[in-house]
């Protein structure tokens, strides 16, 4: 009780805001708090945004999206399942200890150990083993040829072996130590995370002496924070928010097309959409251009397939279904599906307006659509459950954070995948083959055929490439990237 009282007093009189000072502190408003500081546990966007600034990863992507060195300086395949990494030797953790190949091996072993119960396990479980093979060298073995390996390793943060083993997983999560440009100073759960610059960072001293990440769930409140100078940058805004902020003098908007694709899932195994003609008719009923211009206010780029140009495997020449309501209506009549009820399941996480716009478009071609909004876990349970339970249609925004078709259409449409409500042996063969080779040209050819099958069968409809919108102070220099990375190290005042 006395602790609580003391805490309240501290809350009321202490912790006064570090308001709009000379600003060697950057304040970031995020929609949510960090779930775990441990980079090998949660990897939701908000957590990732924060801890990615504390840790270095084995590999990273540059602004153009190319995979480039970070802890690893170079890598080479010695055979289809073995890859050797050369590592930097000049990286120090925040406690002063040196980052060694053992730390890298430890990080891989740790995240692939089921006992850690890491939600990221499935991204790394193709790795069979890792070993130190030299003073600055690590060798990885995969279970089979795994083309997406490098893309996955971009997300592998290197944690300090000695420290983690000493304090244990739980304590590490509370007080992480990394080798990145910022170190964790304090973490007020649910409120904010304070980072301070790692002055001895191997890439050079960071521009901002400190960073504060605040958790502000309501986007209207985040915008108000920006307008009053309480925060310097925020994300997670809708296109309408962006339009409203266009004329704010002190603020500027920045947006980038991401690897996130907005699509409609179409259940090919159950309900009225079991009929291919109905699926094709739905594809023709959707007016992408209006969605992009009216709802997205232009903050999106059309795509005909369920993939964005930011991903490997994107094929521009697979033509989508044109917007043709008359033909759609005819097709539905032909299928005898006039007035059939299309059940659309969704959650508050997805844009309500898009759902309703789709509803209107389907009704315009003679279908009936009911929308059922449930909370995210319930939605997932149904969407990933049996085809009968998964609804006929739903909206999706997919990003594998690997910028590779394998991370998108394989889980979405390959038979046996929990997301897939579609079976097509030819399609399965193509995506399996694309996964089994490291040859980019061959992979692309497989994906081309795979997308042609998807176009004909319509188990999903690509809508547009989503854009990430950032609102920030006019003088902040920040270049957003397709994988929505948020490196404070790369930001500065202009």
């Amino acid at each position: 009780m006395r602790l609580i009282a003391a805490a309240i007093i501290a809350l009321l009189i202490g912790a006064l805001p570090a308001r709009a000072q000379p600003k060697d502190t950057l304040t970031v408003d995020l929609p949510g708090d960090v779930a775990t500081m441990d980079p090998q546990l949660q990897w939701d966007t908000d957590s990732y945004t924060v801890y990615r600034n504390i840790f270095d990863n084995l590999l990273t992507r540059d602004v153009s999206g190319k995979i480039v060195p970070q802890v690893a300086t170079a890598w080479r395949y010695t055979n289809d399942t073995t890859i050797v990494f050369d590592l930097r030797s000049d990286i120090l953790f925040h406690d002063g200890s040196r980052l060694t190949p053992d730390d890298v091996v430890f990080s891989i072993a740790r995240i692939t150990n089921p006992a850690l119960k890491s939600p990221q396990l499935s991204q790394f479980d193709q790795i069979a083993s890792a070993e130190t093979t030299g003073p600055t060298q690590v060798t990885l073995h995969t279970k089979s040829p795994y083309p997406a390996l490098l893309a996955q390793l971009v997300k592998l943060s290197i944690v300090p072996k000695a420290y983690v083993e000493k304090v244990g997983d739980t304590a590490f999560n509370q007080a992480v130590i990394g080798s990145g440009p910022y170190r964790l100073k304090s973490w007020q759960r649910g409120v904010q995370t304070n980072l301070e610059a790692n002055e001895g960072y191997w890439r050079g001293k960071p521009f901002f002496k400190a960073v504060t990440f605040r958790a502000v769930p309501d986007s209207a409140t985040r915008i108000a924070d920006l307008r009053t100078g309480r925060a310097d940058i925020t994300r997670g805004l809708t296109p309408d928010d962006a339009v409203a902020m266009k004329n704010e003098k002190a603020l500027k908007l920045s947006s980038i097309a991401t690897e996130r694709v907005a699509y409609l899932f179409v259940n090919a195994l159950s309900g009225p959409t079991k009929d291919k003609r109905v699926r094709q008719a739905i594809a023709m009923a959707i007016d992408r251009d209006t969605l992009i211009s009216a709802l997205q206010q232009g903050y999106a780029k059309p795509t005909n397939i369920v993939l964005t140009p930011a991903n490997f495997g994107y094929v521009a020449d697979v033509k989508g279904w044109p917007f043709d309501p008359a033909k759609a209506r005819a097709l539905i009549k032909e299928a005898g599906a006039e007035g059939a009820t299309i059940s659309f399941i969704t959650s508050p996480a997805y844009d309500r307006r898009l759902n309703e716009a789709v509803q209107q478009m389907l009704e315009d071609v003679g279908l009936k659509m009911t929308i059922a909004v449930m909370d995210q876990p319930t939605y997932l349970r149904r969407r990933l459950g049996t085809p009968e339970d998964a609804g006929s249609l739903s909206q999706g925004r997919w990003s594998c954070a690997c910028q590779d078709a394998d991370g998108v259409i394989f889980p979405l449409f390959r038979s046996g995948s929990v997301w897939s409500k579609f079976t097509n042996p030819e399609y399965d063969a193509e995506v399996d083959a694309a996964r089994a080779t490291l040859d980019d040209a061959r992979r692309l050819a497989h994906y081309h055929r795979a997308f042609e099958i998807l176009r004909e069968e319509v188990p999903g409809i690509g809508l547009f490439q989503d854009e990430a919108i950032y609102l920030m102070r006019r003088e902040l220099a920040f270049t957003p990237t397709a994988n929505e990375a948020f490196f404070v190290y790369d930001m500065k005042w202009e």
Partner: protein
Amino acid sequence: MIGHIASRLGQALLASFGVLTIVFFIMRLSGDPTLLLVPEGASLEQINQLRHQLGFDRPLPIQFAAYLGDLARLDFGESLVQRAPVLGIVAERIPYTVALASGALLVAIGIGIPAGIVMAVARGTWLERALAGFVLAGQSLPTFWSGILLILLFGVTLGWLPTSGADGIASLIMPSLALGAVGMSTFARMTRIAVLDELSRDYVTAARARGLSRGQAVVGHVLRNAAVPVVTIAALEIGNLLAGAVIVETVFAWPGIGQLAIQSIQSRDFLVVQTVVLFVSLVYVATNLLADLLYALIDPRIRMGA
């Protein structure tokens, strides 16, 4: 008196146990968090493996027994999402919640009770009607809307108050107003009724017959008598405050347990939700016990066990 309190405490703990049971089973019925924890491309085997590791494939009664066993050892468990001890996660939020609830209560009581008294004493006048309109307004606007209006007015346009967050007393003002508004109207209405009720009693006429003015009679006799029903409402209102806090805390980015609870429900972080709910129910129990003690303080009949 002590026996009474002990029996109330026993019944209250029973109620808390009921709360735990209801919440436990409803949460489990609503699905487990495995699907939220796996990355988007995970296969069914991977999902099932994680579910097994987390123990959600066990029969519900066994999970419940295990939970109660842990609880009996005061082990609140570890959050699935935050991977930290639940007790710590919840405890960190409690000061914020207490601060917000106190602020809101201050608004509710500080405005509501005087307004209620004035409404009762000035019954039938324009003053009563004006106050009634003002007071009921607090109960007639969705907080998610009034909250954003407050932010735009006091935060953005006037720049008087911080738009969000929890640093210092200034940032407590707007959330307290938004949250306290609902309670304020409840208090005002109940106080009005209680005071009117007392004003109609003989002892008020008797006091006035002894030469007390209406005001003196109200201050000297009525208010104390009217306090008992008002204290009852106050105790119940604490529960409502914590419930209303869910939306207010979201709008104002106030890191209290309301926000924690809703986020934990959405992420099916069972143990956090259960601990929050347990805390709320214990607060409810405690405030009701406190109300019992207050009755005794106010009313000699209860104090002396008549």
